[in-house]
């Protein structure tokens, strides 16, 4: 699975293979780019938000290409979702990058973990058409592992705004952007809040199952 990943996580391989495809100046270019990425991420980790935005913008095309190349089995509209999961992980784990280490191996290893994870989560559900299962799927009223009542109980345990977001997105089928509007958040902020809320909820659900 990991062998299919399009880009080498090791910087030395990446630079060694570069002359074949881009010519000697490609190596120079890539090294310069690496330095820029490292400076940006180092400044971002010192608390410079603008530098972090520039870093994310700079790495997004690369990540997008990786996800597109890996994602034949998935509809393209999911690719952007996966990209957003990777970007969120870059933020949450950005301080595990050490300023004295090159940024590429770190970024690629992190991205590979999240991309593989995202495909594993979606893979089976997305590639199998639902018609094939129509006959063996239980009816609506069969006991679900988590009933609507349980969901309401758990939503009562997190703060109101997060609960509204989750209800809008998970139960009413709105997008994060629409849900964010109803509670006065930008789409991006709503996604972050949703991610946190879902994490808390899955923690609560695990405890309830036991």
């Amino acid at each position, binding site marked *: 699975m990991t062998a299919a990943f399009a880009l080498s*996580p090791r910087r030395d391989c990446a630079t060694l293979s570069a002359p074949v495809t881009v010519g000697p100046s490609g190596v120079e270019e890539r090294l310069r780019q690496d330095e820029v990425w490292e400076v940006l991420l180092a400044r*971002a*980790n010192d*608390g410079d*938000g*603008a530098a*972090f*935005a520039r870093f*994310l*913008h700079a790495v*997004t095309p690369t990540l997008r290409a990786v996800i597109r190349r890996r994602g034949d089995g998935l509809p393209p*509209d999911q690719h*952007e*979702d996966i*990209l*957003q999961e990777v*970007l*969120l*992980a870059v*933020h*949450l*784990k*950005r*301080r*595990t990058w*050490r300023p004295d*280490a090159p940024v590429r*191996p*770190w970024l*690629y*290893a*992190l991205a*590979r*973990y999240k991309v593989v*994870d995202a495909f594993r989560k979606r893979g089976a559900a997305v590639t199998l058409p639902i018609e094939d299962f129509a006959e063996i799927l239980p009816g609506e009223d069969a006991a679900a592992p988590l009933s609507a009542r349980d969901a309401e109980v758990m939503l009562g345990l997190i703060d109101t705004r997060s609960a509204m977001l989750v209800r809008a997105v998970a139960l009413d089928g709105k*997008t*994060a*952007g629409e849900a964010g509007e109803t509670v006065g958040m*930008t*789409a*991006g*902020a709503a*996604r*972050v809040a949703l991610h946190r809320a879902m994490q808390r909820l899955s923690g609560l659900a695990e405890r309830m199952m036991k």
Partner: protein
Amino acid sequence: MNDRRRTEDLIGALAAAPLPEPFRPGRTLAAMLCVMLAGLGLYLAIFGIRPDLGAAWAELAVQAKTILPALLSLSAIWLALRSARPEGRVMLWLLALPGAVAGAMVLYRLAGADGLSFAEMAGQTALACLGSIVLLSALPLAAGIVLFRRSAPTRPVVTGALLGLATAAAVASGYALHCTEDSPLFFVAWYGGAICLVGGIGAVAGHRFLRW
């Protein structure tokens, strides 16, 4: 294109978000060590260090039962820290070195044994040994798992298992100061069993708590 707009929004939100908590290896190890030493200290204060430790230390087997787990613990924690970064390479074969020495000691003892080896392995205090090592490992392992949640292991199960091995091996090398059973057959079987058990618990904990 609407999707790309959302990505732009996300980048904006992430740039404005507060810095995440960093993973601090030094503090993490210090915390684990403090919790472990507190438990071990209490244990040795209550149940005592073996009275003949000074005299017994001359024997190779007595030294080995403290030093081998200590070496295993050091290599496991070093590997756990490497595995805590996405790009870290983990040379798991390092763990085989103390294991190989322990295996050699068992074989050497078996070669010189005359029929009593099973009773020698079972010993008198096997359950106390197993229970003490596992119980003394619980809190430091929990502390390690909690603090490692800030790190970014791409193989969370391996990282959890390494944390378990490191903790239990360190506890075993301290427990050896109390334990009076000096046969390699005994301590390789029971210390080893306890260390592997806690390693397994760590692997399960890693699967549950170290994924991100």
